[in-house]
């Protein structure tokens, strides 16, 4: 099975939390939304999406319920919980600090050369 190689460890969880925070959606929707928001730059392996969803649900950050979707299909809709909301904030901050840090280092190198 393909591994999630093009995303940093833990990044997928953050992206899912963010996607789900916008509105309740089903698994396929999450996939599409992330592709759409990243303008196709981020490809999520379908195989790793569901374990990640189940893991987040197990940790209590998202919760799921079955609902009707368009054309009478039953689908499982994921929604952010209060704990998930907090987690999303915390992880966003961590991510921002990390990327700012990484960007700082990279810029400094450019400036010197």
């Amino acid at each position, binding site marked *: *099975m393909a591994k999630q190689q093009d995303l940093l460890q833990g990044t997928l969880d953050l992206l899912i939390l963010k996607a789900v925070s916008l509105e309740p959606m089903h698994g396929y929707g999450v996939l599409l939304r992330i592709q759409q928001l990243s303008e196709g730059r981020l490809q999520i392996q379908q195989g790793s999406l*569901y374990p990640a969803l189940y893991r987040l649900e*197990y940790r209590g950050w998202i919760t799921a319920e079955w609902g009707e979707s368009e054309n009478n299909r*039953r*689908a*499982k809709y994921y929604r952010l919980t209060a704990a998930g909301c907090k987690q999303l904030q915390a992880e966003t901050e961590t991510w921002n600090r990390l990327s700012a840090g990484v960007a700082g280092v990279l810029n400094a190198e450019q400036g010197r050369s």
Partner: protein
Amino acid sequence: MSVLSRLRSILPGAIRRTRAESEMDEEIRDHMARYTDDLVRSGVDPAEAARRAKLEFGHIEPLKEHCRQARGWRYLDETSQDLRYAARMFRKNPGFAAVAILTLALGIGANTSIFTIVDAWILKPLPYPHGERLMVVHSTDERRKAMGSSAPADFYDWQSRLTAFDEFAAWDTPLVNLTGTGDPEQLSGVRVTHNFLALFGAGVELGRTFSADDDRPGAERVAILSHELWDLRFSSDPSVAGRVVRLDGKPYTIVGVLAPGFHLPLTGMAQVWIPFAMEAKDRAERRSRYLSVAARLKPGVTRAAANAELKAVAASLAAAYPDTNASRSVRVGALREEIARLGTHDAALMVFALVGCVLLIACFNVANLVVGRAIGRQKEMAVRLGLGAGRMRIMRQLLTENLALFVAAGAVSVLFSMWGVRWISNAIPSEVRPYLPYNGRLSVDVSALLYTFEIALAAGALFGFAPALHCWRLDVNHGLKAGAARAGGSRLKSALVIGEVALALVVLVSSGLLVRGLVRMHRSDPGFDTSKLTTATIVLSDSRYTDFNRAGAFYSEILERLSTSVGVRAAAAATLIPYTGNSSMTRYASNDADLSPAAPLRVVRFNIVAGDFIGALRIPLLRGRAFTAQDRDGASTVGIVNQAFAQREWPGLDPIGRRVHYGPTLKREFAVVGVVRNIEGQNETDRIEPEIFLPYLQLPVRAMTLLVRYDSADPGAAVRQAVRAVDPAQAVAKMSSMNQLMTSQRAQFVITGQVTGCFAALSLFLAGLGIYAVMAYSVATRRREFGIRMALGASGGDVISAVIRQGFRLAGVGLAIGLAAAIGVTRLMEFMLYHVSPTDFPTFASTSCLLAVASVFACYIPARRASRTDPSRALRYE
């Protein structure tokens, strides 16, 4: 995340597992359908779209497995799956399961039984407040290297000078004569300082405990009853407090009844408690040492520090009172160790070690069975590995299966351990019980059950690991090859069998030595006639018999009355009688050189006797004469010695007429007038000790035990009648026959011998079973080989001898290792061996032969099966 919320997430998941599974399927199907739709919408051919969706999604089963894992169901799922699988395997193969579970249950049950004893006697915290800080203080005589009781003046000096202890209490255990309520009765009394009961946390059911005022000189005499005495003698009378009873003729007011659970092995059977209330002159006594001393360390003070301080105080007392305290010192022992010395704790630990071996044998046996089965299932495992099952997963399954086996065995073992504990508990003689923790009561309790569960799990994890390891090393290609499977694991199996045989031999030899001791004990000649002999202890109180000559007259009259009673052959009395564990030693010198002050101190067991003790015991008189009524006060002092004493002092010479000096200062002396044969029963292991006998008319004492030899009917009534006629207020403390005394003294050897005998039988059986299992397995795998051999002309006998040789090679290695180990460990049990050397050759030889014969027999059954192999069928097989 907290455990609770994790559970909350797992549990509903587990309950609704089927629904959750189908939901997972539905969700994945939905996802693929949407993706396919999207692809079709973007212009892809529907069939191609479905193919691409599937391809991109990857394998669905591993994905689902990952999802399950992410949800935290997996472990629960798989474990319950494994357990169900294990149950199915056991049902399919009930013989294997029954043998394994029964074997283990016997091993674990035996273990728990002995653990219950070790726990009650050694491991459980003492049931007294601050039990670990409680100490017993012994007065020691550095010159004689002896340890014993303390004098009151020393005790009170320690109490006032020592800073390492926060409490100092003393006790002694006199027999007291109860009168004033029905027949006179001799009670086991405990005289204590007022703080003693509080020190050991004894509460009262009724009334009050002692106060400091009760212990002052001239205080009103008060007493506290034990719960048992209150039940038996006072019919649990709730208004007993305030009643006056007479103890040794003096009035005592009962002020309380102790709570039922209180028991202290140090004081033995304590029926009535009274405060010392010593007069000033008694408190100043330094010469007579009769107090036992208990003390509690201050928090944070070590035993070594307390010991050092006590030694310093003892040294200053020795300097201040050289007459009495020169060469005297003190030693502090922890209460736990003191209690251990009273009981038979070393024996319990020894048996515990042996039963540990039995459990190991059982575990080796089961590990062997389990490895055998794992090898048999090698192909199954290889197939599963080939189909992508994780090695960890398969190992875990094997481990779960074995754990289930061990836990089931643990559950069954509870029955065995309850039975074992009841058996041992009932075997403890009532005379010994009061000196054991919890009054000798034993029962399988929560800690024993926990222990059972723990060893079942630990053994399961340890020995269930072997087959799991085997699977870890399994090579898929190799494992799938037909027939090749059988080769692996044989080294492990051989090692297990060798270990089993070696351990079994250690158990067999150890119990063999104990049992041989038992046989010697039963066959031994006590040196006197133990049948038709009754004993009755009488203690005359010093308050009523202040004059020793009156005490002498009492015994003279009793003996005279008894010897003329109908049915009595002979009557005597002695301070030491056989099979009681009592001992009394005196210093002595049998020649002039020993009389010089520089001579080393020599001591001998000494016994004061009255009446016809040679006739009552029927000890052969080897030389000289017995005592007569003329050996009285004022006549020349005489004594009789035993053979051991005569041989030690005057080897090859005539002992008659020789003089012996004795007593603490060697001021007393006697002339030897007779020599009697050695008798047994002087100590627990019937070691013969030198002993001297002195006539009571020249050395009257207050406490003696009557020895009455009778014709047919037990003369108990005659004894009571005689005592009542001479002194109506005097009670007889305890009557028992000499055979009863002997039985109870020997009980610990008998119990240990029987228990270890059972263990030996179990080990022998298990070792035989182990060898049988391995050989049966080996024969089954070598069927084709035997077929070829027989086709080439080997006879059935050739095959039998080949198999037996193979099996016996294993057993032989085990026997050799076992012999070496046994020689090493039996030395440790010397203290329990009754006249048997720890390297007793006949025991070693016979147990080794027994085990060897059992192994040959265990090999013979599969060997015979091998010899009946039909070559044509064997070659077609597989």
